[in-house]
């Protein structure tokens, strides 16, 4: 079977999507959660680039992918800054300890 990059894109996106969301459900370490988010962002980048290619507008998809990388890097930075602050005040990065607000 001859798979083109576009066909593998679907497989890749779904795989990363699954891994990322599984991690968000299971992982308790805040920094690792940010890593999971980054994995999801990879899925989005791949999806956009591939979608651009699929619709014959490679440069459009690539441009979107670029923007996503930039934006989500900022989000990651913000998340890490928050994580440091959490570490300082909660003494841990276990998000299960961040469960004081409930009910």
């Amino acid at each position, binding site marked *: 079977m001859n798979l083109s990059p576009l066909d593998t894109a679907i497989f890749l996106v779904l795989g990363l999507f699954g891994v990322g*969301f599984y991690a968000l*459900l299971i992982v308790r370490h805040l920094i690792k959660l940010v890593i999971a988010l980054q994995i999801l962002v990879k899925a989005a980048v791949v999806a956009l680039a591939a979608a651009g290619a699929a619709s014959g507008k490679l440069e459009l998809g690539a441009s979107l992918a670029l923007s996503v990388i930039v934006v989500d890097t900022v989000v990651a930075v913000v998340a890490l800054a928050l994580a440091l602050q959490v570490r300082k005040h909660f003494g841990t990065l276990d998000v299960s300890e961040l469960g004081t607000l409930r009910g």
Partner: protein
Amino acid sequence: MLAGELTVLTIALPWFGALCIWLGGNKAPRLTERAAVAFSVFAALASGALIPFATNQVVLRIPVGGVFGEFTFVPDGLGILLACIATGIGSLAVIFSLDSMRGEKELARYYALVLLFIGAMAGLVLTGSLLLLFFFWELVAFCSYALISFHNDDPKAVAGGIKALVITQIGGVGLAVGVLLTYAQLGSYEFDALLRHSAQMPREILGIIAFGFLLAALAKSAQVPFHTWLPDAMEAPTPVSALIHAATMVNAGIYLLARFYPAFVNVPAWTTTVMAIGMLSALLAALMALTANDLKRVLAYSTISQLGYMVFAVGVGATLASQFHLLSHAVFKALLFLAAGAVIHLTGTRALAQLGGLSERMPFVRNAFVLGALALAGVPLLNGFWSKELILEAGAQNAGMAAFILLLFGVSITALYATRVTWLVFWAPPRETNKVASSNGHSRPKEIGDAPRAMRIALGVLVGATFTSWLLIGGVSEMFARTLTLANVHVLTLFEMMAEIFLTPLTWIALGAVGFGVWLWTARERFANVRASWQFVTRAAENSFGFEWLNAQVVRATMGAAARLRVTQTGQLNWNMVGIVGGFVLVLAVLMMRW
């Protein structure tokens, strides 16, 4: 034309007064009191002045636009009668408050809410737009809630207020649905549209509207099974109880039924349901009044029972009789409540076990209360007698002998509990009278004496009205016949009424029932055995025939569901993500399914 201006005045005067008093704050209590009396009395005068202008035409039209239609006002006979009751009895309650509320904190809030209440009720009965009716309907509910829980520090008062609010609002949903369906069908909120075009509507829809309105009326007028809020509303200051029972709140339901009776009369099972519920409420509440041990609760159950008669009367098509009884009831129930309020105010308790032997200490209050009780029992020449006889007669004519006999049973019990409560308060040997236990923590024990001046004025006016209000039958019926063209009301002059009542044997039978009830109390010792065998009834009555239990179950179920649902808010990020992923799976699955 003056009618529009007077209509506006009737509503706006109390509201304007409420605004002034609210803004004025608690700095000058005397001024607040005077302003409240002035605004309420002027509102009463304005509504009285409306009487000659009674019309079935729209006198005021305010376009609101969009889906809100027009706000209209139609001061017809029915509306004016109820507006006069609301403002008249309302202003007497305000006058009575001068004494009974003196020294309370936050008088401004009290009087502002009372005036808002009176104005809202006047608006409710004078408007001609269903949406505006709903507006006022909700506003009345809000005022009753705020006033019942006026003593916010008392958890019972707060609970009573919220109960009243929630139950009447649940009924209000019925009204809302009815109004929405009417608008969807007819594209108008006018009363006239509904009354005239009801026959053109699809039958199911008209049925839903009819029963929606009925639901609202039953909740508002505290009829079985929605009556549970009324006894709990007794935590309100007593003038407010008088207001709710006689002038404003509960009358709204009767008004609604009477107003739209012509539209719904042909809806299958509607009139039967109305009659049945009225009858049931009249009898059950009377039994509960017989067993209650709290002065105000007795009166509360008695209100439910009397309202039951009115609902029944609407059900058999006797609009005039129902509204006439509403008038009588408003007068004598206000009298009873205010007299009871005087007793409570002066003794500091309302438990029947702690009252008694007050006959000599407060002769004025005693006389007033006895008169009210006699009118309630239906003793001749007092207003309650005439209107009750009209209802009994209509019942016998239109609903058959079985209904009449049941009603007679109710009449006897009414006489019985009226006698009982009067005797227990004034003539029973004083049991714990002087160990004045403040029942709600805010009235102060004091020297027990007779009523002070403002109370006497209010009581005096009501005593007079108890003797005379029935003389108005001619005017009322004429006004109804002229302006309620669809309600099929005939002019009934005073002499016609007297002749009609005295010439029918039913009246004498009913009087016999009254006498029997009174005699039952005097001979109660002799029936000790019978009472023992009827204990299951009395016990059931003490437990409100299970309706309180039902009520509590509903509340508990809701609260329990709320508590259990809180578990879903785990505060755990991972579980929160389960919500997101799970939601995605669900939504995608639903969208992908082939329907």
